[in-house]
């Protein structure tokens, strides 16, 4: 029987803490920055934040797991650069990994 709720207090603490941290980013933009325009170097740095963090997240999976993951990562990147929809890109990526592992492993 699968459960509906785990009641781990550490889990709830992490979730609430992440919620407060996230809301803090949104609220501080409203309260601290009324009318201030962020530009130049600070804006370039903040703009780079999402792709930079996401790349760091996937580095162990793509570059440190095995050659099949690396090749499938390149194939996924090509599909993404061709601007295929998100789900199509994911299917291509995961399908190519499965093919590589099944037939070339």
């Amino acid at each position, binding site marked *: 029987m*699968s459960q*509906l*709720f*785990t009641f781990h207090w*550490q*889990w709830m603490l*992490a*979730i609430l*803490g*992440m*919620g*407060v*941290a*996230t*809301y*803090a*980013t*949104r*609220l501080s*933009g*409203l*309260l*601290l920055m*009324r*009318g201030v325009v962020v*530009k*130049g170097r*600070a*804006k*370039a*740095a*903040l*703009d*780079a*934040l*999402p*792709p*930079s*963090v996401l*790349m*760091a*997240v*996937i*580095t*162990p*999976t*793509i*570059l*440190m797991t095995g050659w099949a*993951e690396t090749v*499938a*990562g390149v194939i*996924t*990147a090509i*599909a*993404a650069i061709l601007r295929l929809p998100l789900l199509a*890109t*994911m299917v291509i*990526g*995961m399908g190519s990994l499965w093919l590589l592992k099944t037939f070339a492993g």
Partner: protein
Amino acid sequence: MFLAYVPLAMLWGALAAAKGFAPLDALAMSFFVYAGASQFIAVDMWKEPLPILLLILTAFIVNLRHFLMAASISRHITSVPKWMQPLLMYILTDEAWALAERRALSGPLSLGFYLGVAGPLWPIWFLFSALGAVIGQAMGNLAALGDFALAAMFITIIAGFWKGSRTGAVIGVSALVALLARFYVPGRWYILLGGLAGVAIAALLHVEEEVQGPVDTIEAGTP
């Protein structure tokens, strides 16, 4: 537009279930955190013993971009009562922000328009997260699939942020530092270290434009 959230929420719920999340746990995180990218990253980091402080710090850094978006939106909602503005910020996401900014280009941003685009996304996100967790529980262990599914999704999002060779330098440095940190630093610090290294490179490579055109201060474009 609302439909784009459904498969993402369900995928996130299924990946969370693979890490032991029950449906109400998934619902709680999507309800309280409500930030897609940081939730996917958190699930990736979710391992006992739970690195609670690192999870919170990472969520903060990953979502710092909302600081700029909120700042930008605040210019357009001055007609909304002050007490209501903090509530509007709670449901500010990349998608809601992009649509609201586009609207603000052609006229004032009304409370109704903002609530119309940002309002439904929140319940869609947390309800379908829970549904995804139910399906994930039923399908058993998706963890093996999950790692690469996450990578494939993030590759797609990174491509959406692509703005030329400087982006290449950012993700190259991020990957290199993350790789080294994964080898030499215990735990999951490689995410923050790699991410901040990429940001530092972006700041270093930044060249002030000679002519400031009438371009909006923040470009649209996070998926």
